[in-house]
């Protein structure tokens, strides 16, 4: 918990095998490492999204779903799962999504049109969305302005076609300029079943959480980190700490919205120790960053040495 708020990360990853990701960095992260980091930073629960890679075929999805389900099952009140689907793999993929939701206990479906190479609002997606609709689970998607077929506004058209399904736009559309001017937030504004999550966004606290809450209301905006091997959960937490949003709005964004989407209640989650506002573990130990509540507490004047 942080500052009295339950924190539920709407976008996290585990990587259980030795794969190389961005720039030669190891992508490996176990459930135990994830839990340790969640404990350190006050994340009470996380939606762990199974992760496929380019060109995967059905057996690889089956293996990934089994492995992630087994890993998160060790932490049933901390980790909840989203399975991953490639609509281009047809009926066998639909059946695998049904298995993941019905047998393995996943609570959401992730689509990644950049990796899987499909047009996000094309009819090929409908059978997967139909499964999500029938189970009442949300559909999360990584969209990207620079990939034809994956542009964020396509989520709006798909969501209008499936008004009974909740859609989560990962990374708020993943464009730094669009985050600044809230372009994709405005695109989603009139479609109430589109939610935006703020993982993997720039250091623009207001663009990430302030403007989106003003435009959409607090119930359609989600805290998320993309915590896996690369992104650090504390940065988006500090963004929320820096903003003076009403406490009800912060409670929604920090965790309650994601719980609602996953069909969970606060009591389904095992809370962590409350870390307070602005306090983070760093390589220098625990450090408190000035947030609006303490911003008037000036430090003693310092001696200038470089002039």
């Amino acid at each position, binding site marked *: 918990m942080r500052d009295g708020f339950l924190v539920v990360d709407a976008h996290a990853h585990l990587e259980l095998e030795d794969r190389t990701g961005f720039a030669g960095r190891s992508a490996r992260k176990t459930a135990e490492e994830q839990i340790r980091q969640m404990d350190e930073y006050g994340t009470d629960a996380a939606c762990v999204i199974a992760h496929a890679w380019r060109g995967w075929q059905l057996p690889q999805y089956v293996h990934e779903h089994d492995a992630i389900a087994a890993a998160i099952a060790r932490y049933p009140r901390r980790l909840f799962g989203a399975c991953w689907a490639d609509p281009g793999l047809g009926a066998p993929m639909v059946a695998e999504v049904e298995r993941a939701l019905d047998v393995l206990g996943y609570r959401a479906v992730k689509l990644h049109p950049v990796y899987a190479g499909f047009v996000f609002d094309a009819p090929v997606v409908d059978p997967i969305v139909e499964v999500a609709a029938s189970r009442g689970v949300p559909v999360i998607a990584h969209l990207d302005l620079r990939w034809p077929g994956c542009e964020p506004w396509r989520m709006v058209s798909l969501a209008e076609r499936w008004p009974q399904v909740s859609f989560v736009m990962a990374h708020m559309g993943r464009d730094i300029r669009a985050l600044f001017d809230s372009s994709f937030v405005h695109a989603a504004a009139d479609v109430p079943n589109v939610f935006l999550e703020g993982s993997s966004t720039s*250091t623009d606290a207001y663009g990430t959480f302030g403007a989106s809450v003003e435009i959409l209301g607090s119930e359609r905006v989600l805290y998320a980190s993309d915590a896996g091997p690369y992104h650090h959960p504390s940065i988006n937490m500090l963004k929320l700490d820096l903003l003076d949003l009403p406490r009800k709005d912060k409670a929604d964004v920090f965790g309650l919205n994601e719980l609602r989407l996953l069909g969970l209640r606060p009591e389904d989650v095992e809370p962590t120790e409350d870390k307070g506002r602005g306090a983070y573990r760093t390589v220098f130990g625990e450090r408190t960053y000035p947030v609006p509540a303490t911003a008037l507490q000036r430090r003693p004047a310092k001696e200038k040495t470089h002039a």
Partner: protein
Amino acid sequence: MRDGCLVADGYVHIFPRETLRGGRVLHHPAGRLVEQMDLHGVDLSLVIARPEGVGVFDDVVRAHDDVAEATTAHPDWLAGAAWVAPRHGERGREELARRLASGAFEAVVLHPEQEQFNLDDTELDAAIAIAQAHGAPVVAHTSLATRGAEPWRLVRLARRFPSVSFVLSHLGGDGGMLQSLEAAKIAGRAPNILVDGSETVTDPFATYLGPALLLGPERVVFASGEPVHQLALGLLKMDLLEFEDDWRRLILGGNLLRILGRGDAPTAGPATLATATGE
């Protein structure tokens, strides 16, 4: 100072009055910036002049007046970067030369997105020659999404002026480009290009440590993008990373002070295993 290191922020904006867009603080005055710096232990900020209008020369002069007033009022806290763009022609270059000669400005900024030029246009050469004559570094706003502002264009410009230090700001302004270290790799093609980590996504390694391992710690500059991008978030990124002390000193402030001519040229030892690890 923070943890024994001088901190110099390589990319901030000011404006004479606080400007809000919706609930966002789009600009804040110099006094407010200095308060933020003091609160966070930042010793010096490079204030990027930014005219309000697009292509309006009078706005360039007004922005320079504002920054000059701020750097004159807070000389120990603020350094200025003067704006120049090919569309303003000879009078733009005269304005640049005048500002650099005044002592109120110590750097030059190129903003191809706002001023609609290509970073590798030879039309820029006369302005860069002025920077060179004054020993001023050139800070370039880069953005993968904007034609003309792509990071690779800066390589061609930097190669034409090997004695000038260039800063590739925002590491390409794109999350994927940052995380794949592609912007840093592009900067590696010209030894006189440094990178700054302002306005970037939530991956601390790819913002600072990865580029430092690739380019050397002498070529990475801490920067925030205040006030749209918060200083605290940039500092938290640095605080999450394991660095050797000399690397941290260079990145947090030493490198910017060096290219501004405000300090000695610090050096760093080679990467160690401890330095090369990190999340």
